[in-house]
């Protein structure tokens, strides 16, 4: 195995990993604190990507465009929480699945109506679209930028939750909702804020995915299911677990797709190895999930119960 290829694939895996973390962090927070399963979280990712494409046309500057898209998505997330999901806390998870499934249909059709069914290709700004030499081979700057932003967001989240008053309330809310409420905290406002924060994180991942992948209807659903795998592996409700799980899933998926066909070719015929490698690689992370669950049903780093 080529060392350069290995390094490049590691970076690609990290990039997928941090994007998954941005998705999974919001999901796991919302689940850990509100006990709500939110299928529509992928819609915020998609919304972030579409809004960035739209705001780019308005302000013609990448960073302000992303900031604007994040703000709007956070507002939409807050609105969704207040109008619909707030009534579903404490209800059977089945109804949460049903309602958020309905929201997905709504967002998918709504965005199709507004932006058309064709995928949009986001053009990154000049300072992000080049390549830099890395270990003697060119590597896209934008991918490095995504990794940097993802790690910075993880750090920010760690600081927010571990070292601020809001974070203290979030942790307390996850442990004992009634007690926090009894101590005079406006729990409804707190939940709304957390939901908006989660939506903004998903939108950030979507905005960054825009230039790398295409902006299209249904883009949020693929990554949502990967984020579920991440959460299950890491331990539901645990941010640290989400981080570990996201990096694991990102790396395993990327390595699998890049290397399995070659690895299998050592034992099998080339055409068979390519076909089998592609099939197994597409299932690798689910097998990883099954293995983790078989030995640790509560995930690798479970939240305190």
């Amino acid at each position, binding site marked *: 195995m080529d060392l350069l290829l290995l390094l490049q694939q590691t970076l690609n895996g990290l990039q997928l990993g941090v994007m998954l973390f941005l998705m999974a962090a919001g999901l796991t927070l919302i689940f850990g604190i509100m006990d709500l399963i939110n299928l529509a979280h992928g819609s915020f990712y998609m919304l972030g990507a579409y809004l960035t494409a739209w705001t780019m046309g308005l302000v013609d500057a990448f960073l302000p465009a992303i900031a604007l898209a994040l703000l709007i998505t956070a507002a939409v997330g807050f609105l969704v929480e207040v109008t619909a999901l707030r009534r579903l806390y404490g209800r059977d998870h089945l109804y949460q699945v049903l309602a958020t499934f309905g929201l997905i249909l709504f967002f998918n059709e709504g965005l199709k*109506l507004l932006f058309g069914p064709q995928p949009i290709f986001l053009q990154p700004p000049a300072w992000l679209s080049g390549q830099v030499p890395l270990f003697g081979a060119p590597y896209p700057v934008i991918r490095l930028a995504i990794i940097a932003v993802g790690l910075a967001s993880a750090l920010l989240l760690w600081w927010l939750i571990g070292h601020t008053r809001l974070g203290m309330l979030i942790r307390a809310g996850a442990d004992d909702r009634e007690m926090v409420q009894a101590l005079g905290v406006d729990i409804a406002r707190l939940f709304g804020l957390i939901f908006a924060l989660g939506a903004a994180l998903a939108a950030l991942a979507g905005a960054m995915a825009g230039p790398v992948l295409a902006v299209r209807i249904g883009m949020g659903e693929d990554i949502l299911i990967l984020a579920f795998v991440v959460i299950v592996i890491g331990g539901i409700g645990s941010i640290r677990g989400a981080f570990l799980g996201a990096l694991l899933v990102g790396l395993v998926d990327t390595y699998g797709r890049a290397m399995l066909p070659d690895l299998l070719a050592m034992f099998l015929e080339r055409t068979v190895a390519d076909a089998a490698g592609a099939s197994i690689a597409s299932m690798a992370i689910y097998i990883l999930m099954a293995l983790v669950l078989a030995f640790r049903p509560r995930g690798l780093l479970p939240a305190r119960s």
Partner: protein
Amino acid sequence: MPRLSEMGWRWRILLALALLSALLIPWTGDDYLVKLATRILIFALAASALDLVLGLGGLVSFGHAAFLGLGAYVVGIMFLHDFEGTGFLGLAPSQDIFVQFLLAALVAGGFALATGAVCLRTRGVAFIMITLAFAQMLFFFFVSLRRYNGEDGIALWNRSRGGWLELEDQRTFYYFVLACLVLFLVFAARLYHSRFGRVVRGSKDNDRRMRALGFPTYRYRLTAYLLSAVVTSIAGVLLANATYFVGPAYLSWHMSGQLIVMVVLGGIGTLFGPVLGAALFILLEEFLPDVLDLFAAGAGEYWMLLLGPLLVIVALFARRGLLGVLVGTGR
């Protein structure tokens, strides 16, 4: 679902009406209507099978499309090998629908046992996410399976053979599907009131108490999951035959979501409710676009824009579903 002897008059009228209209539809001679009704019956079978785990067991399986797809792929793969004159893993392919039922039951049952053993170690949200993930795994597996046309799927030129039954005939096929559904509903209704059904329902309400009473609830729930998976795969075999097509779309998570929607729309935990739910959902899917087009030309294309909020409203307010509205009490 109450016992037949304990049913109120509203229940009896509803069942009689449903059965009568199901029996009479082919006599309208309208080919389109019969096809639509066949589709409804097949999804009714899948949805009430899902209700075995969803309603009775309280286990929100978000991966039942996997079993539907497995059943359909049994038909597709057998057809393809028969057409090519090649063997499948050294065996001669069979286009006999009863052999395909058996194969589908074996494959789906095996997958259900393997994944169920992992899923059922968890509860609640984790169960939802894991069933979804396993179904998605299978979806990507079939998408990447170039031997069986990957994303494009397999178009069938003929239906499976049913011995002396001429399944190619639309009316015969319709009655065949109806027979499958009625058989299952009768079986499921008996199961509901059996010792097995009581243990599964008890485990939903209070698993710890059932275990303390000495019931190995894990085994009961796994059996319910297995049973539900097998019946759903039978629906998959029928679906492939109804549409003359097999593709990964049958395994997509939208399909799993739709099955859940049918169960809840009709009335969860009632076994018969999902039949009504399937009918309502497919009629909405079929006619809502046309209705919307009446108001504004071209609006029909965006019918899901209306369906989405409708589902939110159903989730928020309608707990007993259509059946609850029609017969009063939920059970």
